[in-house]
């Protein structure tokens, strides 16, 4: 797993998370003491907790189109476009922050995420320029090594309304400084997702090798251009909650025959060394096919798939056919796959072919043509195009549906993750949610809803006192969260709904999901491309798969 042998990594369920038991609003005044010394006060406790929520993948769904305007402008800029631009553009995107820790704007951000090297060298900061932050990062390194010198590992600091979560992953130190209601466990999942994203471009082995060779290496050199992907990942947590929170991927709603036909098509179109083929639209999964020889009995981790989905929706893949190495951190953090990425027919439909042969570009391109032809025969392009434009949102690129489709008045939004999918152990965790409509079209409102969902999630999954059902009357909406053996559900209802009314709405919603489940989810696990080969051949293939250690 991602934790490796690292002492700071959360061993799932090893301890209880006290934080999770505090539920609603402790949000208050602006916390000044972000970087306080841990030794001088009682009101912070070094957290002794493991992450209870297990296996949450990097949440990488691209935000819904409406919310995209600010991030879009940023994405259009090459982060590495020029050194002097790097700062301007993040300013124009998020309303000005110089990165100087004394800067009010910078301080007022709800959540900061930093990545630094063990030597204290800045690698990434969500806001501001890393150069201006070197002293701040120095303080963080000091905190970590102070606790380390006592033979212990720092995990979190609670300071008034701030939470500081630390995560050490090999030579990298990741820190979240947050005023959001996210629990420390949730923040840790977010940091793990950030780490996975970094590993996916560099591999864990090469990061380790680089720092072993030169401790003060400036990793930004290698990550240049990837910062935007990290930004997008972190933004998606606030704008479009779900994937990271639930540890599941979102599927494009599609009729079952069409989805199965596409699955069959993907399985039929193979190329030498092809391990995984994925069809996606706007960061959502259409269908996937695994090659048995390569990924035999190894379930694709949803975190890895989510990472890929986020990756291919990056603007860098908008044109042409691309060929790039990519690492799946959960599958094998030290090896590369080679990815062929192309948009089919200039549609938002994206085909991703993952193989083990660094020279297989032309084979993959041939394979793509087969898929394209097959899709034309199926008429799938039109269908997927419709799916993509079905939503009311202007300039929609991500397929979605309106909550109106449920036909339950009072229901504003929901997240539904089925737990009763057939052949569950081989199935991808999935979830569904409608698009965010008014009153959640504005950035702040989305953030608020995301906060509420995170709070409920933290409460449901509190390791000390988990709950099954929460009915929460908030200021502007009523929420009901419910986890059973069959599903995990978060609903957001109008504030005027009564308890009885809420139950009625949820019943209606569950009935609707049941009726639509074939369309909303991939009900049957992705099949393998080739029939089970002779066992010797398959183990031989699998043994060297993914073990390329390029840098």
């Amino acid at each position, binding site marked *: 797993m991602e934790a490796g042998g690292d002492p700071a990594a959360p061993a799932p369920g090893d301890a209880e998370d006290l934080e999770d038991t505090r539920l609603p609003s402790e949000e208050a005044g602006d916390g000044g003491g972000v970087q306080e010394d841990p030794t001088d006060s009682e009101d912070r406790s070094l957290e002794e907790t493991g992450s209870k929520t297990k296996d949450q993948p990097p949440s990488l769904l691209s935000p819904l189109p409406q919310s995209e305007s600010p991030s879009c402008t940023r994405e259009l800029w*090459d982060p590495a476009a020029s050194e002097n631009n790097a700062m301007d553009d993040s300013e124009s995107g998020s309303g000005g922050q110089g990165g100087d820790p004394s800067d009010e704007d910078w301080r007022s951000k709800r959540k900061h995420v930093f990545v630094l090297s063990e030597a204290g060298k800045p690698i990434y900061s969500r806001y501001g320029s890393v150069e201006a932050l070197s002293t701040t990062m120095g303080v963080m390194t000091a905190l970590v090594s102070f606790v380390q010198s006592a033979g212990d590992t720092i995990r979190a600091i609670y300071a008034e309304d701030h939470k500081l979560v630390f995560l050490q992953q090999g030579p990298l130190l990741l820190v979240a400084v947050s005023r959001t209601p996210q629990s420390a466990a949730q923040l840790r999942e977010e940091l793990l997702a950030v780490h996975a994203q970094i590993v996916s471009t560099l591999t864990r082995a090469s990061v380790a090798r680089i720092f072993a060779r030169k401790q003060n290496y400036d990793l930004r050199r290698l990550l240049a251009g990837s910062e935007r992907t990290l930004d997008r990942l972190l933004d998606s947590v606030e704008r479009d909650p779900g994937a990271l929170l639930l540890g599941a991927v979102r599927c494009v709603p599609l009729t079952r025959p069409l989805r199965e036909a596409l699955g069959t098509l993907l399985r039929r179109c193979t190329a030498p060394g092809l391990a995984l083929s994925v069809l996606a639209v706007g960061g959502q999964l259409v269908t996937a096919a695994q090659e048995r020889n390569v990924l035999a009995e190894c379930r694709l981790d949803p975190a890895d798939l989510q990472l890929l989905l986020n990756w291919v929706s990056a603007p860098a893949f908008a044109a042409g056919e691309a060929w790039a190495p990519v690492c799946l951190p959960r599958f094998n953090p030290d090896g590369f796959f080679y990815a062929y990425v192309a948009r089919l027919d200039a549609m938002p439909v994206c085909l991703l072919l993952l193989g083990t042969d660094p020279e297989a570009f032309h084979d993959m391109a041939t394979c793509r043509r087969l898929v394209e032809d097959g899709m034309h025969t199926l008429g799938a392009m039109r269908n997927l195009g419709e799916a993509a434009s079905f939503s009311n949102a202007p300039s929609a690129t991500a397929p979605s549906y309106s909550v109106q489709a449920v036909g339950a008045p009072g229901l504003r939004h929901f997240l539904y993750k089925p737990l009763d999918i057939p052949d569950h152990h081989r199935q991808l965790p999935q979830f569904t949610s409608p698009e965010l409509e008014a009153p959640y079209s504005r950035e702040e409102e989305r953030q608020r809803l995301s906060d509420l969902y995170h709070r409920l999630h933290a409460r449901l999954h509190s390791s000390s006192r988990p709950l099954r059902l929460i009915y929460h009357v908030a200021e502007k909406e009523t929420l009901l969260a419910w986890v059973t053996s069959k599903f995990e559900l978060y609903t957001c209802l109008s504030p005027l709904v009564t308890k009885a009314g809420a139950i009625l709405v949820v019943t209606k919603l569950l009935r609707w999901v049941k009726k639509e489940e074939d369309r909303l989810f991939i009900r049957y696990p992705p099949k393998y491309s080739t029939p089970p080969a002779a066992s010797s051949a398959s183990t031989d293939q699998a043994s060297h798969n993914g073990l390329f250690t390029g840098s």
Partner: protein
Amino acid sequence: MRKPDGKIVLLGDMNVGKTSLLQRYMERRFADTVSTVGGAFYLKQWRSYHISIWDTAGREQFHGLGSMYCRGAAAVILTYDVNHPQSLVELEERFLGLTETASTDCLFAIVGNKVDLSEEGASEGCETEGDSPGPAGGSAPSKGPKQVRLEEAVALYKKILKYKMLDEKDMPAAEQMCFETSAKTGHNVDLLFETLFDMVVPVILRQRAQGPPQTVDISRYKPPERTKSGCCA
């Protein structure tokens, strides 16, 4: 599959404008691009030939793919930024090594991009004034003098020929193969690609004349006919 007849590879440090050059030529537009991940592949028809163009990522971690990009390349476009001398140095230090797998009679072009950002470039980059570079250039930094002179590129070109042990007389003249371009205004971009395409065609023909390429074509493989009768024949 349509097999490309020839291959051209764009190499250069990150952020010198390789993707922008290609986009300007293929799509006649200039957009703020995002950094390229890995390599991107384009196919261009030139007369009766299909020429594939590989746009590579300048970022270091993708250099592992370099050998695939360059294998059998008929031409390599080495790109630098005229405003960043280091980008020319990098060409020699980091990128030249990647071209080892290119074909032996591979052509080299050296391109200084972003002349629109320096003074001299501003005065001469008026070819495609119709594109009105005005509004897009809102955040253009103040123009300074060009940091890399064309002569330096010419010197590098000659050095490359020496390094590849090619005879200067057999190869196109340095003056012909060193360009200064602006992907933003379109200055010299067409000239660059079209000059190169014209030069690549004879290389393609020569390669064809030399017989089958090193790669094995399994699609045309015919099982050997059985001449001797086996035991069960």
